[in-house]
Each structure stands twice: as structure tokens, then as C-alpha cells.
């Protein structure tokens, strides 16, 4: 592991970074357009976003070599907002999302992502893949068999062209080929131009045209919170993947802040909030990108291409884009989780599946993540709430040894595990292998003791560990009246 200087993170790998940046820019264009269409806005919103986010994050991000731009996870969250309130509210929500993320970064909350269980993360990734896939189905509606054939050709080229060469991204080859075929054969199918206009101009600074009122805030805040969480989750996951594949470390709090700054700037330049992209970052690393320069070049070259060849871009058939998006969905999905689903604990598998189902039903990754976290907390609590009581009887005395954690969830069943009418004179309750965590546990132990005493037995409690003794002492005065 090594930490490099800021200068190094820019110019430590110039040749590799420039080349990989160019490759990523080519791969970003179709995705930026497709994600805009998912969100229900003009392709320019995603293209401007990809440009401003990539360029901004190259300066302020915490993870050199990671690619951030307009993403599917974020686009999916915008669908409803755009449909009900329009583009200006999307821009305002993007700015607010950025502000929330900056706050998240300043308060150094990135470490709490470790509290998100593995199965929820896997569910998040799989749900994202499924949503990207299903979002493409509408492009098949009312289309002829040509659509299906062209999507098939696109996918075949994407997966088979690497056999020939890896020098050019196969997605680009597929798009160029399918576009040329469509134009030259004069196929009557929808193209990018039918979904919205492409303007060959640079983005300009503008303040979203919305009333600056409390009502506006009420509308955009729920979206921005969800966007902020989903954006950070995917960004920090991607950062971990880049960390691991390059054997370097990165500052997750600076990255969170950087994502926020990038989204604020994007909102003011007519783009939608985005985040880090797992797929594109992997492409970047594989193409030799390591430094900030790679992300910067990707953003600049993307804008350059749009300005120069924008009028060709509108002629790309939707079939080609749908093919690319299906590929994105396939590579986003964690197939390993399906292969190992029978090996992981059943509760983990359930959490993963519930996370996915919640997201697919609500179209909201944030809700899915919360559902997953809550469910796995419940599973965890129920797992550790099993307290074993071992009973030993010798010479008129019974010894109960408790094994497990004593807290609100575990004490209710505990009371029934003792034989209060046993024919003994003395009862010992040994807590040497258990731990008292809260007032419910203190009350429960007191209740057990008093129940035995009411039948005229002598009761002693032994083996209380230090923490538990302290808690019992603290609570004894206040709860003593129970």
C-alpha cells in the first residue's frame, strides 16, 4: 500500500491515463445518453453531467483513477421527479444531493458504510442490474423484428469483438456498426434523436428555474436524500474495488465530499446528479488508467466528441443503446451471488433477495437498502437472542448456567426456562457465560429471582461480569421498585 502526493496522482502515469481516458470517454457516451432517457430527460442532461462530474471529480475526488459520471442508479431515482415536476426540479435536486453529500463527507460518515451488511450490498448491485435491464424493455414496444435482430447483433459484437482486438472498446465498434447498418439499409426504427435533441454546445452556468420556497424543498428533499445515499453507496463500493484492483488506498471521506461538490456543480450546469461507475472504473483500470488525469481526459474528450460529432450521435438507433445497456446490466449483476446462494447462510440469502425485490417494486435503491439493513438487523438480533439455560441438580441445590446475551429481545422466552416449583431449597443462577446489556435484562433477572423467592427458596446470582455488574448497579437504584 502506498499513498502518493497530489501531483503524483495527476502526473504519475501520463501515457496510460490519457489512453485509458479516451477509451472511457467512448464508452461513456452511449451510457450517458441511455441514462438520460431512463430519467426521462434530453440526452444532453446526462452528457453534460458526465462531462462536469468527471472533470470536477478529477480535481476534488479522493480516489484517483475512478470514473464518475451520470449513472443508472441515480437516473432511476429521477424518473418520478421528472415526470411530475420537470427538468428544473431535477437540477435543483442534484444541487441539494451534492450539498447533503458534502455534509456527509465533512462529518466523516464514510466509515459507517461498514455497517451495511454484505448481503445488502450484493442485493443493491443485483437490483441495479435488474432495473437497468427492465428499463430497456420499453424500447422494444411497438418495434419490428429488426429491433430484436439489431440488439442481438450489438450484444454479439460487444462480447465477441475482443477476440479480434482489445485496442478499441467493443461497445463502440458495436454501436458504429449497427448505426451504419441502420442508416444504409434505411431501417425504420427509433434513434437517439427521437428521444430528445443533442445540442453541440458547451454547458453554461444557470440557476435552476424554481421557486425558492419551503414547498420546493419538501418536493426535492426526499429525492435528494435517496440520491445522496445511493450515490455514495455506489461510489464508496467502486472506490473499494479500485483500491483493491490497484493495491492502493483512498480517502473515502474526501471522495464523499468530492462527489458532493461534483453534483452541486453539475446541477448548476444543467446536468443530473451522478456517482462513481463500477463498470467504467473497471474499464479504466483494465485500460491502464491509474491517476486523476484519466478521469479528466475522459470528461474532456467526451465533451469534445459531442461538440464535433453530435449530429452523428442522434442517428444512433435505440437498438444499439439497448444492447449496450443489457451488457451493462449483465456485467453489473453479481453472478457469483447466484452461484453461491446455496452456500451462504439462509438469512443472508433472504436479505439479498428481499433487498432486490424491494428495489424492483419501489424503483428506489435507497428504500431497498434500508429494507435490507432492517431485515438483517432483525435476523442478527434473533440469532443472538437465543439464550441457553443449563440445569444441574445436586443435593437440594439447583444450578442454572445461562449462555448467551441478555437483552430486550432475549429475555421474554428466558422466564419460561426455569422450573420455579422444583423441590429444592437453594437456587444458584450463574451468569459467567452471559452478558447483561440493558434494563430489560436487569428486570428479567430480578423477576426470576423474586419468583424463586416467592416459593420460599434461597437464591444467589453469581458470575456477573464487570460490565454487567456496573449496569446492574446503575440501574438497581432506579429500577429497584420493580
Amino acid at each position, binding site marked *: 500500500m502506498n499513498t502518493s502526493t497530489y501531483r503524483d496522482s495527476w502526473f504519475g502515469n501520463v501515457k496510460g491515463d490519457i489512453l485509458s481516458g479516451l477509451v472511457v470517454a467512448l464508452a461513456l457516451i452511449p451510457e450517458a445518453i441511455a441514462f438520460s432517457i431512463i430519467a426521462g430527460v434530453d440526452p444532453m442532461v446526462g452528457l453534460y453531467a458526465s462531462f462536469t462530474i468527471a472533470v470536477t471529480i478529477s480535481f476534488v475526488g479522493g480516489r484517483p483513477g475512478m470514473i464518475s459520471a451520470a449513472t443508472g442508479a441515480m437516473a432511476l431515482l429521477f424518473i418520478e421527479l421528472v415526470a411530475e415536476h420537470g427538468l428544473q426540479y431535477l437540477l435543483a435536486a442534484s444541487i441539494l444531493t451534492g450539498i447533503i453529500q458534502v455534509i456527509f463527507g465533512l462529518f466523516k460518515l464514510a466509515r459507517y458504510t461498514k455497517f451495511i*451488511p454484505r448481503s445488502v450490498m450484493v442485493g443493491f448491485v443485483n437490483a441495479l442490474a435488474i432495473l437497468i435491464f427492465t428499463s430497456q424493455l420499453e424500447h422494444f414496444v411497438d418495434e419490428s423484428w429488426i429491433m430484436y435482430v439489431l440488439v442481438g447483433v450489438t450484444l454479439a459484437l460487444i462480447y465477441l469483438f475482443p477476440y479480434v482486438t482489445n485496442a478499441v472498446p467493443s461497445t463502440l465498434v458495436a454501436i458504429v456498426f449497427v448505426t451504419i447498418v441502420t442508416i444504409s439499409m434505411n431501417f425504420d426504427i427509433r434513434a437517439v434523436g427521437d428521444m430528445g435533441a443533442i445540442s453541440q454546445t458547451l454547458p453554461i452556468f444557470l440557476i435552476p428555474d424554481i421557486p425558492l420556497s419551503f414547498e420546493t424543498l419538501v418536493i426535492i428533499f426526499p429525492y435528494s436524500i435517496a440520491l445522496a445515499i445511493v450515490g455514495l453507496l455506489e461510489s464508496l*463500493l467502486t472506490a473499494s*474495488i*479500485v483500491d483493491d*484492483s490497484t493495491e492502493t488506498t483512498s480517502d473515502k471521506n474526501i471522495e464523499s465530499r468530492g462527489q458532493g461538490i461534483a453534483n452541486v456543480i453539475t446541477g448548476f450546469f444543467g446536468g443530473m446528479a451522478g456517482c462513481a461507475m463500477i463498470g467504467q472504473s*473497471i474499464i479504466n*483500470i*483494465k485500460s491502464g488508467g491509474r491517476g486523476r488525469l484519466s478521469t479528466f481526459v475522459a470528461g474532456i474528450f467526451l465533451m469534445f466528441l459531442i461538440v464535433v460529432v453530435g449530429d452523428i450521435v442522434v442517428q444512433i438507433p435505440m437498438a444499439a443503446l439497448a444492447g449496450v445497456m443489457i451488457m451493462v446490466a449483465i456485467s453489473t449483476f453479481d453472478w*457469483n451471488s447466484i452461484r453461491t446462494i446455496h452456500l451462504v447462510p439462509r438469512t443472508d440469502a433472504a436479505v439479498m433477495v428481499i433487498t432486490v425485490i424491494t428495489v424492483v417494486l419501489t424503483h428506489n435503491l435507497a428504500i431497498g437498502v434500508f429494507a435490507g439493513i432492517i431485515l438483517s438487523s432483525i435476523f442478527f438480533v434473533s440469532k443472538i437472542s437465543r439464550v441457553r439455560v443449563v440445569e444441574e441438580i445436586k443435593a437440594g441445590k439447583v444450578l442454572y448456567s445461562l449462555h448467551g446475551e441478555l437483552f430486550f429481545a432475549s429475555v421474554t422466552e428466558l422466564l419460561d426456562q426455569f422450573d420455579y416449583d422444583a423441590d429444592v431449597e437453594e437456587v444458584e443462577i450463574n451468569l459467567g457465560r452471559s452478558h447483561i446489556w440493558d434494563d430489560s435484562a436487569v428486570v428479567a433477572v430480578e423477576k426470576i429471582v423474586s419468583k424463586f423467592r416467592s416459593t420460599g427458596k434461597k437464591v444467589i446470582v453469581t458470575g456477573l461480569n464487570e460490565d454487567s455488574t456496573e449496569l446492574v448497579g446503575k440501574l438497581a437504584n432506579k429500577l429497584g421498585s420493580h
Partner: protein
Amino acid sequence: MYQKILLATDGSEHSKRAAENAVNIAKCSQGSKLEVVYVVDADRAKSDVLTHWNSVDVNDSRKDQVSEVERIAKEAGVTYELKVLRGEPGPVIVKYANENEFDIVIIGSRGLNGLQEFVLGSVSHKVAKLANCPVLIVK
């Protein structure tokens, strides 16, 4: 006759069998040394990071994956060393083998990902073609 032995592994069934062969070959000559490499490319990083999201260090879990190899080597009393390399598996293994002048490379015939193998060709083929030393592909 083989002193420096390189075993490439990914924790799969095939690579476990490769490990058994590697250990047997190492036992044949005195003073031989076995080096076990596990290669992480960007795609594997994704699945490994997801699989080990809550663990302290992904690399610890990787060592778990090759623990079977370690066990076999330990039981046979073979000197071994573990290394995690970064990059695309085929070229990285070839480069490592050639630069460090290994006497033999041992590798399982098939990795974990069938689709990848179909698209990009198998790692073992690349190694067999480009390594400067004998290569044993274990089925």
C-alpha cells in the same frame, strides 16, 4: 530437477488439483521452493470486494481461499510462499514466471468464470504459449 516452482491458483477445484501436483513435484527434488500466486484483476476485485464487504481486509479472505493449497504444502513439508499479484491473470503470470526465471509453472486448466473463458480464451492457454519454461496444465 525443478527448483523454482510457480503455482497459479484462483481457489477453484481445478487449481486445488494443480496444487496437489505442484506439491508432488516439489517433493521430488531437494531444496525446491513453491511460490503460490493469486492474481486479482479488476473483475475479480469487484466480486471479491462484494463477497468480503464486511471483512477487515480482503487480502485476508484471499489467503483463506488458498488455505487448502497451504494445508497440502504444509503436510508435505514443502517450502512455500504466497503472493497476490494485480492485473490480467494470463499476462501477469507469464511476466512473473519469466522475470523470476521459474523452472516450471503449474496451473489448473479452467478457472471460475466460464463466460470470461469463452470470450477471452483461457488463462492456462496463454501461459502455456508465452512462458519460457515448461508449463503443466492440470485437468
